[in-house]
């Protein structure tokens, strides 16, 4: 694995060029391009907020900010996995002609999506400052814990990279993988605290805490909650007139997620390296 990393480092220039190329293709229509790709999460969150506030009796304050704080990172994971699933097949004509470390293809997808996530988070902060702070100047909406963001981002990046490497390698041989992943991503959206809160989960499992732990074996669920906890002030969750006190950030669960993610990263890289020479020879 060390030799492979060395080789990747030798080709870093190609990786950066490819990331730049991805971003260029994505934002080809300059400034508007970026905002178009932000439209999807913004509208989804807007609709969810309207539905939950009005039809499902959710009285939590600033609900849309809390949803966005979990939904933007979730979308990053989804985009990483789905984009990189196709990355090798799309580039197969090139892969068959020229040598370069094949992991550059999924990695370029991940890094360009990561740049996109960082830009989206900047827009999120801008929203907090302009929309919340200007209306309530007495309290600044970004808490000090937001300084922990890089740690959570790194764990998230490791997990996404590991999964993307596994899925891109497998999808090159079995194109069904992409369809399975699409379905799993759809289910994952409901299995993560995006349109509800981890407090809701704890409340419904209050008699059997092992179920709460089981739920958080999914590291993306932990990550979604962690983004919320560090980017926004803790506040009570109010649904159906039940008031749930905010839970603190669970360092144990985050530690597990970190451990799990780094494990997936190593496994993913090992699987990818084992399969990468056979990409060109696929039947």
């Amino acid at each position, binding site marked *: 694995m060390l030799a492979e990393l060395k080789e990747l480092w030798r080709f870093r*220039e*190609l990786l950066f*060029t*490819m990331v730049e*190329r991805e971003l*260029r*293709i994505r934002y*080809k229509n300059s400034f508007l391009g970026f905002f178009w790709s932000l439209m999807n999460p913004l509208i989804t969150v807007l609709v969810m907020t309207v539905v939950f506030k009005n039809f499902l009796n959710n009285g939590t304050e600033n609900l849309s900010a809390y949803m966005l704080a979990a939904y933007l990172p979730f979308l990053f994971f989804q985009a990483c996995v789905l984009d990189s699933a196709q990355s090798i097949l799309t*580039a197969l*004509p*090139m*892969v*068959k*002609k*020229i*040598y*370069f470390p094949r992991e550059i293809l999924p990695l370029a997808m991940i890094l360009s999506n990561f740049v996109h996530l960082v830009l989206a988070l900047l827009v999120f902060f801008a929203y907090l400052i302009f929309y919340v702070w200007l209306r309530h100047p007495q309290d600044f909406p970004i808490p000090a814990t937001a300084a922990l963001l890089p740690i959570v981002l790194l764990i998230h990046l490791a997990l996404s990279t590991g999964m993307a490497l596994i899925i891109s390698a497998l999808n090159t*041989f*079995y*194109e*069904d*993988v992409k369809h399975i992943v699409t379905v799993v991503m759809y289910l994952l959206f409901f299995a993560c605290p995006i349109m509800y809160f981890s407090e809701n989960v704890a409340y419904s499992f209050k008699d059997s805490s092992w179920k709460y732990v089981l739920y958080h074996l999914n590291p993306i669920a932990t990550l979604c909650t962690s983004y919320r906890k560090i980017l926004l002030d803790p506040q009570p969750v109010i649904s159906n007139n039940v008031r749930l006190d905010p839970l603190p950030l669970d360092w144990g669960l985050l530690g597990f997620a970190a451990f799990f993610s780094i494990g997936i990263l190593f496994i993913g890289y090992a699987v990818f390296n084992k399969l990468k*020479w056979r990409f*060109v*020879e*696929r*039947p």
Partner: protein
Amino acid sequence: MSEFIVRVEDLRKSFLLSHSGAAGLKTAILWWRKRQIERLEVLKGISFDLHKGETIAIVGKNGAGKSTLLSLLARVYKPTGGTIDVRGRIAPLLELGAGFHPDLTGIENVTFNGVILGLTRKEVLARLPDIIAFSELEKHIDSPVRTYSSGMLARLGFAVAVHVDAEILLVDEVLAVGDNAFQEKCFERIAEFRSQGGSILFVSHNADDILRVADRCLWLQQGLIHADGDPKEIMARYESDEAAPKEAL
């Protein structure tokens, strides 16, 4: 002769052919017991040296293993057996413009292609004027390459490949592209490359090209080197061999 720049020793490559075509998960799961796997030996032990400044032409019928050999040298495939010792930078000119993206401009694609062939971005930028001048595409270089004709694409691809300062060029079928005038320019550039000590390994069916540039000729037959030597002599034998079955008919 001078020292070698590429040494190929007992090179073997075989592919697994699966008759059920296990491209789907379903077939893989349902037929994993019954699937027939056949081993297809494309190269059965090839050894030769490419020397500095030498140009070798590879001839042979379809399926003789010519393209597989070039792909192995380009490190696209991993050899099944044997070794390849390369002591210089290889630039594959296998299919011109393989990595071009239709929505990006000529310049953006040149940068990308140059980097993939092993240059840094700085080096590509330094060579950009030369590359553009060589391709004669000054007017179109800022337009997306989807607006290019295939001839223009080939010219741009060729221009990048000959400007990456490789020591070894791998060429599959396309030694010269474009119209007659541009082809002449390609040959001039190749002659210049050779006079500077560059080595070329090329696959071709064109006897004129081979006699014009090659110092040596390798004749591949069924994965083995059938003959190795002077291009004139080998091409004469190769062409009479090609013609022989037709005479028999």
